[in-house]
C-alpha cells in the first residue's frame, strides 16, 4: 500500500496533498429483550485525498480504490476552485512508521457463536434480575481497522487499530415511569476485555430498579460534586471544545475570549489533553496529518496556556502544533479534535468536599452532553442529594447546565482521585463526525452555584 499511495501522490500539483486509506472489518451482536436482535459483520474499504492550494481545500472520498491517481487529480482540481488566498500550514517532520496491533485474545479469531454466547449470558442476568426489569439491551461491537496514511512530504504511517466494546443496559418500569441504567466495557487489547462482566451486568439491572423509586431532582441552584466520569464529560464538553482552535482561528472575537494568559479558574485548576497517554481511548502515536501526539496543557494553575491545533490552525495562529487533527472515518477530512482530556488531580479528599455542603447534589456518571460554545448541558446517569454534609437519597433526571466561564471559576475543590471513563461504545461528535474515540477523565470536583435542571 505504501508504494500505491506514494505513486498516486505523484499526480498532485498543489502545495500539499495527502491520502488516507482505511480497511475495516467489524462484527456486532445485539440483544434487545430476550431475543437476539442482530448479528452480522461488514467490511469497509475506502479513502480520502486532501489537496491544499492557496488556502483552499479540495477533497475526494471514495470506496473504489482502483484509480487512486484519478482521485488525487480530482482533489487537486477542486482545491484550485476554492483556493484564493495564502496557504497556512505548519511544517511537520516527515516520518515512516508502522504501528501493529497488540492483542491478548484476538477477537478476529473468536467465532461469532462465542461472542453471542458471552453476550447472551449478560443479557440473561439483566432480564432475570427483578420483575420490574422490562427490557434489556446488550450491544457488542468490534472492529479491526488498518489505516494507511501518506502525504506529499514523504510521510507514510500504517496503524492497526483494534477495538472491542460493549454496553449492557437494563430498562426497568413501574407504571409510566421507565428508568435505564447501563455499564460499559471493552478495550483495545482483545476479546478478554469483555469477558467476566457478570457482576457489572447485575449492577446495571440493580441501578435501573433502584432508580424507579428515586424522585426526580428538584430544579434549582446547588453546590454540586461531580464524580470522575462526570468531571471528564464536563471538562471535555464544556471546556475542551472551546480549546479546539478551529473555532477560534478565523474569529478575532473568539480569540479575544480565549486569549492565552487569561484566568479561567483557581490556582489549583489544571486541564490537559494528552494523545500520548498509554492506554487512553483517544491515544495514538500520530494524528491524521502525521503529527506526533503529545501532552498539551490547556489550563495551567488556572491560566489559559494552550489550545489544540491542526497544522493549518497552528500556522494561522502562530502557535505550536499539538497533534490533534483527527477523523472518525475515511469519508471525513481530519479536523481539530480532543484526544484524552482531563482535569488533573488536586489534593482534596472526597469526604471533605461533602462535609461542607448543606444542600447539594452529587452527580454520578454521564448519559450525554452537548455544548454550544460557552453554554453546556449534560445529564448524569443518576445522582444523590447531599444534605447536611452527608450523601443522602438517590435522585434521577440530574441535568447540569450553565456557562462554562462561570462554572470553571466556581470550582472550589479538586479531588485527589483522578479516574477515567471506562471503555465502551460511543464517543465525541463534531462537524458531522461521530463517534470519535476520546478519553475523558478527572477527579471529583466541587462546583458552587451550579444550575440543575428539572421540573420545579
Amino acid at each position: 500500500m505504501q508504494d500505491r499511495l506514494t505513486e498516486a501522490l505523484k499526480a498532485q500539483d498543489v502545495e500539499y496533498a495527502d491520502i488516507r486509506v482505511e480497511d475495516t472489518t467489524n462484527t456486532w451482536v445485539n440483544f434487545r429483550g430476550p431475543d437476539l436482535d442482530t448479528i452480522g459483520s461488514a467490511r469497509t474499504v475506502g479513502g480520502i485525498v486532501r489537496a491544499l492550494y492557496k488556502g483552499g481545500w479540495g477533497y475526494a472520498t471514495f470506496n473504489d480504490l482502483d484509480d487512486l491517481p484519478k482521485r488525487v487529480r480530482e482533489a487537486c482540481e477542486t482545491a484550485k476552485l476554492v483556493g484564493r488566498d495564502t496557504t497556512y500550514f505548519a511544517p511537520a517532520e516527515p516520518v515512516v512508521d508502522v504501528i501493529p496491533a497488540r492483542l491478548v485474545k484476538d477477537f478476529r479469531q473468536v467465532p461469532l457463536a462465542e461472542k453471542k454466547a458471552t453476550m447472551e449470558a449478560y443479557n440473561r442476568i439483566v432480564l432475570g434480575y427483578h420483575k420490574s426489569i422490562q427490557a434489556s439491551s446488550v450491544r457488542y461491537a468490534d472492529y479491526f481497522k488498518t489505516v494507511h496514511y501518506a502525504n506529499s512530504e514523504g510521510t507514510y504511517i500504517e496503524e492497526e487499530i483494534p477495538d472491542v466494546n460493549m454496553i449492557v443496559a437494563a430498562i426497568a418500569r413501574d407504571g409510566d415511569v421507565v428508568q435505564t441504567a447501563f455499564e460499559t466495557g471493552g478495550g483495545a487489547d482483545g476479546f478478554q476485555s469483555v469477558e467476566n462482566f457478570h457482576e457489572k451486568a447485575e449492577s446495571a439491572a440493580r441501578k435501573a430498579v433502584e432508580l424507579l423509586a428515586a424522585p426526580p431532582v428538584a430544579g434549582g441552584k446547588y453546590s454540586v460534586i461531580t464524580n470522575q466520569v462526570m468531571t471528564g464529560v464536563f471538562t471535555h464538553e464544556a471546556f475542551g471544545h472551546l480549546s479546539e482552535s478551529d473555532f477560534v482561528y478565523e474569529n478575532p472575537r473568539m480569540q479575544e475570549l480565549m486569549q492565552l494568559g487569561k484566568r479561567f479558574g483557581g490556582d489549583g485548576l489544571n486541564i490537559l489533553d494528552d494523545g500520548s497517554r498509554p492506554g487512553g481511548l483517544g491515544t495514538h502515536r500520530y494524528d491524521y496529518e502525521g503529527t506526533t501526539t503529545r501532552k498539551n496543557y490547556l489550563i495551567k494553575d488556572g491560566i489559559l496556556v494552550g489550545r489544540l491545533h491542526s497544522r493549518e490552525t497552528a500556522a494561522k495562529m502562530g502557535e505550536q502544533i499539538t497533534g490533534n487533527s483527527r477523523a472518525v472515518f475515511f469519508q471525513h477530512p481530519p479536523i481539530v479534535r480532543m484526544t484524552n482530556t482531563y482535569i488533573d488531580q488536586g489534593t482534596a479528599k472526597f469526604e471533605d468536599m461533602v462535609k461542607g455542603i448543606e444542600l447539594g447534589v452529587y452527580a454520578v456518571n454521564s448519559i450525554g452532553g452537548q455544548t454550544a460554545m460557552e453554554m453546556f448541558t449534560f445529564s448524569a446517569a443518576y445522582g444523590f442529594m447531599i444534605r447536611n454534609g452527608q450523601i443522602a437519597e438517590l435522585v434521577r433526571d440530574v441535568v447540569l447546565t450553565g456557562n462554562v466561564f462561570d462554572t470553571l471559576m466556581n470550582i472550589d475543590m479538586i479531588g485527589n482521585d483522578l479516574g477515567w471513563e471506562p471503555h465502551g461504545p460511543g464517543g465525541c461528535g463534531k462537524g458531522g463526525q461521530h463517534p470519535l474515540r476520546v478519553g475523558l477523565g478527572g477527579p471529583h470536583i466541587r462546583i458552587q452555584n451550579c444550575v440543575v435542571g428539572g421540573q420545579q
Partner: protein
Amino acid sequence: MIVEKIIERAMRKAQAAQAIMLTQETSEVNFENDRLKSAESSQRTQIDLKVIVNGKVGVSSTTDPNDVEGVVSRALEAAEFGSEAHFDLPDAQSLEPVKIFDPALLPLEKPEMIRMGQQMMDMIKSYNPEILAGAGVNKTVYKVAYANSKGANYTADHTEFNVGAGGALVRGTDILYAGHGIGQKKRAVDTEEIAAQAIEYFRLAETIVPIESGEMPVIFTPSGLIALLLSLGLAIDGKNVHLGASPLRDKLGQQIADPRLTLVDDPFVEFGPRTSAFDDEGTPRKVTPLIEKGVLRNFIYDLDTAGRAGVKPTGHGSSRRLTNLVINAGDTPYEQMLRDIPNGLLVHEYLGLGQGNPINGDFSVNVFLGYKIENGKLMGRVKDVMLAGNAFDALKNIAAMSKEREWVSGPFAWFSGLMPYVQVGKLSVTAK
C-alpha cells in the same frame, strides 16, 4: 446486476435472501468563517445483504462490488448463529410513482454551487458584517437497487439538494448561532429566501432579554417541535411498543393528543426530502396516519418487528425511520397566536435534547435559541433558560395551532416535515 448476482449466490445455501446496493456521487462546497473553505467530490458504494438459513437471519455488508463471495459467506456465517426470522421477505409488488429525480440537478457544477453559497454569504454579511458567516451547498445523485429471492426487483434514481446558510455572532462572552437550510430532491431553490430566514433569526435575537422562572405558555416553532416529536417518535416505534417500553403501547385508537392535531407520515410528497417508493426491506411505502384528530392510529414496523408483533410492516425500513411528517394547519393566524400571549416563550432550538429518558416523554432542555413573548410581541432572545415538561402531556395541552406551516428539512434539521407553530398551555421555564 450485482444485487441479483448476490441473491443467486446466497440462494445456493439460503432459503431467502435480499440485497440492496447504493451507488452515490456527491459534490459539495462549504463556506466557513466568511470564506470559501473547501469543496469535495465523493463516490460511494455500499452493498447490504440479508439471508435466512434454517429460519435464522444473518446480515453482512461491503463497500466492494467485487467482493460478492465475501459478503455472501459472511452473511451465511452470521446466519448460523443468527436471530430467528419472524418474517417472510415481501413479494414483488407494484410501486407508487414518486417524484424523486430532477434532471436539472445533473448539470449543476461546483462553480455554480460556489456562486449560490457566495450570494447567501454576501446577504448575511451585508445585514451585519460582525457575523461570521457560513454556507453550504450539497448535491447528491444516487441509485438504489433492491432485489430479493421472491422476485422483487426495484431500482430508484434519486437526486438530492441541500442548501443552507448561517453564522455565529460573538459579543463579549455571548455567542449566538443561527442558520437556516432546506433539503429536497429538486433543484429549484430560493437562496435569497434561505439567507433572509437566517437573517431573521439573527434580527430577532439581537437583544437579550431577561425572563423570570415559572409556568408559562410556550410556542414551538416548526423546528422547535422536535422537543415533542422526539418522544412521540420513540413511543410509536413498533419495536419499543413490542418490547413494552413505549408508554403508548396500549393506546391505539385512544385520544392521546388535542383533537385538533393530525400527524401523518407521507413518503409521497413531491420531491420531499425523504420521499421514496420502497424501503430498504423491499416493502412498498405508503401514507401512514400516526395521529388523527388526536387519536393514535398507527405504530411503525419493519419486517422483523412486524413479524414478532403479528402485524404488517409499514414501509419505514429496517431502522423504522419516519419519512416526511405532516401536521395539519391550525385555525389561528401566527400573529394572533403571539398577540394573545401576555407572557411566554417561543422556542426554536435546544441543547441537550434526547438526554434522560425521552421515551417517557420527559424533557429538560437548555433553550439554545428562544425568544421571550411579552404582551403579544417577541421581545428578544433569552439565555441560560431550561424548558422542562412532558411531551405527551404537552400534546394534550395544545392551546393553538397556526394557519401557517413551514417545511423543516435540510442540514440543520432533526427531522423532515411540514409543520405549523404549536402553542402549548403551560410549561416549566427555569431561568438562571
